[in-house]
């Protein structure tokens, strides 16, 4: 087994998605973890940049087969993204297709009632997974769930890990999108909305300007961009001196 012989635990997730690509087979695979709110959380690992982009795109847009699979608890298999099935996520389908993604197969990672995340496979040519491919993919999803929980178990082996644990005591993520979450906090204040709605505003603004969400978020955090929810762009303005004095409750 991969896990039993891995010399470096940090490389095991990557080796798992690489093995998955060979086994199913598919062009690329990515593992991501979700928060309890059911929103896309973080990329754990990806076999190539396109697989990582498939995951990132869904985080940027807030729509996609991976999200549906994780929330719904069943695999979402899209043999032809350019076909009718892709109409469920029109922006995702069009953007992913431009990056060379023709088919996407998303398998949820679940343990009991906890929706942990999703294993997303993509192919550069359209076509369904045959029975053997589906069996392999399902097995990879089970393996991925076990692996992720093993990583968590290894963290807790030395004793209970407090929620505020430092970086080294947490599962290493390829991308935890800290800057996007920070920007959500900032926009929640400037636009007087909750953080969930703030993320929606950020996504909308990024899409309208044809920018990556991460980039826009970085500008919001440095103060180059201010979103007040009115739809008017404010660029390169220094942040106001005093915070809003309104009672937030």
């Amino acid at each position: 087994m991969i896990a039993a012989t891995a010399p470096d635990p940090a490389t095991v997730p990557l080796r798992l998605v690489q093995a998955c690509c060979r086994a199913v087979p598919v062009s690329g695979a990515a593992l991501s973890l979700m928060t309890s709110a059911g929103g896309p959380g973080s990329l754990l690992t990806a076999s190539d940049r396109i697989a990582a982009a498939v995951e990132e795109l869904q985080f940027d847009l807030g729509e996609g087969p991976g999200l549906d699979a994780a929330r719904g608890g069943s695999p979402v298999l899209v043999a032809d993204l350019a076909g009718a099935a892709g109409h469920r996520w029109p922006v995702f389908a069009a953007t992913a297709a431009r990056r060379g993604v023709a088919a996407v197969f998303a398998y949820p990672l679940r343990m009991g009632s906890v929706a942990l995340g999703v294993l997303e496979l993509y192919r550069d040519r359209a076509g369904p997974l045959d029975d053997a491919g589906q069996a392999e993919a399902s097995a990879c999803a089970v393996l991925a769930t076990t692996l992720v929980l093993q990583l968590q178990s290894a963290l807790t082996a030395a004793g209970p890990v407090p929620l505020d644990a430092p970086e080294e005591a947490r599962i290493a993520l390829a991308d935890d999108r800290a800057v996007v979450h920070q920007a959500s906090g900032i926009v929640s204040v400037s636009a007087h909305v909750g953080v969930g709605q703030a993320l929606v505003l950020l996504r909308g603004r990024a899409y309208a300007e044809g920018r990556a969400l991460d980039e826009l978020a970085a500008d919001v955090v440095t103060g180059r961009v201010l979103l007040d929810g009115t739809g008017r762009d404010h660029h390169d303005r220094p942040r106001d001196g005093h915070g809003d004095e309104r009672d937030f409750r």
Partner: protein
Amino acid sequence: MNQAQVARVFVELADTLVDDFDLVDFFHLLTERCVQLLDVTSAGLMLSDDRGRLQLVAATSTLTRSVELFELQVDEGPCVDCFRSGEPVVDVDLTRAHERWPEFTAAANAAGLVSTHALPMRLRHRVIGALNLFSDRRPTLGRESLELGRAMADIATIGLLNERYLREQTVLAEQLQAALDSRVVIEQAKGVLAARSASTVDEAFARLRRHARHRGTSLTAVATAVVHEGFLLDDERSTHRP
């Protein structure tokens, strides 16, 4: 009982181990299938608790006093003997067992039972419980039923292990997700604080830590209150005094 029936029961039990597993339902199903497959009158499953005492966890109820009979065996009876020795205790003739287990035998006779059998649930070198069978007709279990009975006891053990595993894994899953949630809310709180006071996110993080340390609460708890409940840090309250 025929091969096909046996095979069907085993597949059925294996299937329940996988989908939406409920341990108590599983044990009840297992005892019922024991009665069908082993040609006995009733079956009961006993597990040992932390202190090594047997507890009845599931039983068929074809006999009006079968539960009581199982329960009585917590202190004395073939089931306890089986549990302590780790070996099957079968073909116990209830017409001649008064000297060994007086109270239990009297009750069994009153219920019209003629024989009883106890099969150990073993986990490597430990005995974790026992499968208890009664018959009101047959004095002996028979070789085939004995073998099948031992297999059913093994399946019961597997079910228990499965449940423990699932429970542990679910706890890990919840911990993992809580850690993810915490990272998100802390970043969000940095943004909220930075915007409220026109500072950088790094400065905001320092203030968040300071508040949490000063108050003896977790960073995650403070961050959650800041983001979702409009909570003001101590240093914000002083500047917001009306």
